[in-house]
């Protein structure tokens, strides 16, 4: 198991290096002149030359990349051009807010998604099953920004129950903090729940028709025990994989949802950076988001291995 984890970690490291080169290449080679962009259209020739020298923009690209990558290893993500501040501190603050959003959404997606899937499977072809499947179909088909807008229309604009956006720090007002999280979390949950509940339903159906469930029922075990201990436990394996994929969607969805609700997190910072063409900030945001994504994938794989005895023992035998 340890060997497996270290192998995976080494692979992730290689992928991250490749990704960082890609991020650097795409953002650094394509645009014309960074110095010009910072100083504006009417900057004089000399001031542009001066700034280029100061930022090291005249060095060959590999040198620039090496400087950037070395900085990251020392916890220095660079310096924002537009905000004129170190990026690391900005990113950390934004990350904490996004992490809260992501955590709650993921929690509800897992709990409600699996719950709906199990209910739909147990009551196969009943009205409940059909309602769940229609509901999840809408979840998949409607883009998150539209759900967000519909929620704002309904709960903020029409009913006036909840704020339409922005954010309040927890230290300032706990209630304000919670209230500002409800709509973004609900939006993210709704758009992601469909995959989980559909997959749980189909794998649960498969499990319910299996020999071991029949055996458990024949033993006279209570139905609840059969469902939870025997069927659900096996049905959850594919769900773990789909949850890992959903984390990827979650990171993408966060960018969109934060924009809809003007939520000052990582995604909004990235969009801000792109809007202002703040290259170091764009690079840092994308790098952090993709690194998080890679590690959450690894975590999902490890969970899968842990819960699936067949994989676990096969690895041991190796």
């Amino acid at each position, binding site marked *: 198991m340890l060997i497996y984890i270290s192998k995976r970690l080494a692979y992730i490291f290689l992928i991250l290096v*490749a990704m960082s080169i890609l*991020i650097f290449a795409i953002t650094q080679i394509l645009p014309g002149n960074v110095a010009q962009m910072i100083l504006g259209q009417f900057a004089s020739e000399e001031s542009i030359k001066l700034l280029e020298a100061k930022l090291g923009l005249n060095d060959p690209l590999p040198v620039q990349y090496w400087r950037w990558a070395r900085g990251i290893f020392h916890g220095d993500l660079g310096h924002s051009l537009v905000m004129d501040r170190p990026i690391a501190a900005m990113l950390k603050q934004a990350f904490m807010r996004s992490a809260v959003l992501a955590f709650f959404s993921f929690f509800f997606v897992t709990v409600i998604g699996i719950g709906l899937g199990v209910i739909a499977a147990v009551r196969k072809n009943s009205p409940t099953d059909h309602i769940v499947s229609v509901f999840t179909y809408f979840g998949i088909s409607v*883009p998150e920004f539209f759900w967000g*807008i519909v929620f704002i229309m309904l709960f903020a604009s029409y009913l006036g129950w909840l704020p339409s956006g922005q954010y309040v720090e927890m230290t300032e007002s706990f209630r304000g903090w919670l209230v500002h999280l409800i709509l973004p979390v609900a939006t993210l949950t709704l758009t992601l729940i469909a995959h989980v509940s559909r997959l749980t339903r189909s794998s649960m159906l498969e499990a319910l028709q299996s020999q071991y469930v029949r055996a458990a029922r024949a033993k006279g075990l209570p139905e609840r025990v059969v469902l939870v201990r025997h069927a659900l436990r096996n049905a959850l394996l594919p769900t773990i994989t789909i949850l890992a994929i959903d984390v990827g969607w979650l990171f993408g969805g966060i960018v969109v949802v934060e924009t809809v609700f003007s939520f000052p997190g990582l995604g909004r910072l990235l969009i801000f950076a*792109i809007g202002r063409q703040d290259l170091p900030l*764009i690079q840092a945001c994308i790098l952090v988001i993709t690194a998080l994504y890679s590690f959450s994938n690894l975590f999902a794989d490890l969970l899968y291995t842990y819960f699936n005895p067949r994989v676990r023992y096969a690895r041991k035998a190796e």
Partner: protein
Amino acid sequence: MRVKPSEKKEISNPKRMCRRIPVSLMIGGLLAVLIVLMALAAPWISPFPYDEFHVKDRIQPPNATYWFGTDEFGRDVLSRVLVGSRVSLFMGIVATAISLILGVPLGLLAGYHRGSVDEIIMRLTDILMSFPPVILGLLILAVTPPNIIKTAAAVGAVYVPVLVRLTRSVTLGLIEEEYILAAKARGERAIYIMAAEILPNAWPPIIVEASLRVTFAILLAAALSFLGLGAQPPSSDWGLMISQGRSYIDTGPWIALFPGLAMCITVIGVNLMGDGLRELLDPRMKHR
């Protein structure tokens, strides 16, 4: 091949054939056809030009003249939604075509040659798949001025790895078939075998996947437009319309509502069609 009488009867009986077509395919197909027709006919059936200002009638709620209301410039929302269907479908189809054009040959190569070619192609897809989809799109579009073609290309690029992997796995399944071995024994060139022997047999799952990809592509392109990295004003792209309508939620909710509804109907239609196609082409999925 001799056909048993009973089978023959089933094939020639149109009523039976109809019953074999899943309901989802019929409803989805109908919706999809309607939307394509709407997109094709948009310039002729829309009551006003999509970018015509009616300064006197700004932010009007839906009424007899403007069925879907007007936006902040007094543009007719119905006309904009109709014309916008062209942008969305265009993005979805072009992006999917790009992923097919890049993904299928790479998948064929990887599956056919295996070894180091396979290894290189698969590691490249690994790298691309390590980005969350929206983030990869943002990365590609981040530093250059946005336009529709670039957005479509970025969306296409995002979904290339999926098609590479699918094509590769289908190819791997076919490669041991006798007709492929026969072609190899005849001394056919690799390109011929891939294009004329493998591809015709590999297409059903690829087509189903591609039809599902169209909705993913439409949604991703709309999300990128919503974030300001797709179609630019005064285009009536649905994602862009929703993004602009965001500022007028209190005074004119219809500005964002109608393009959003149009997008939902499109995506539901194509999704239903894709599910139906899958059911039709892959009967094993039926009872899932």
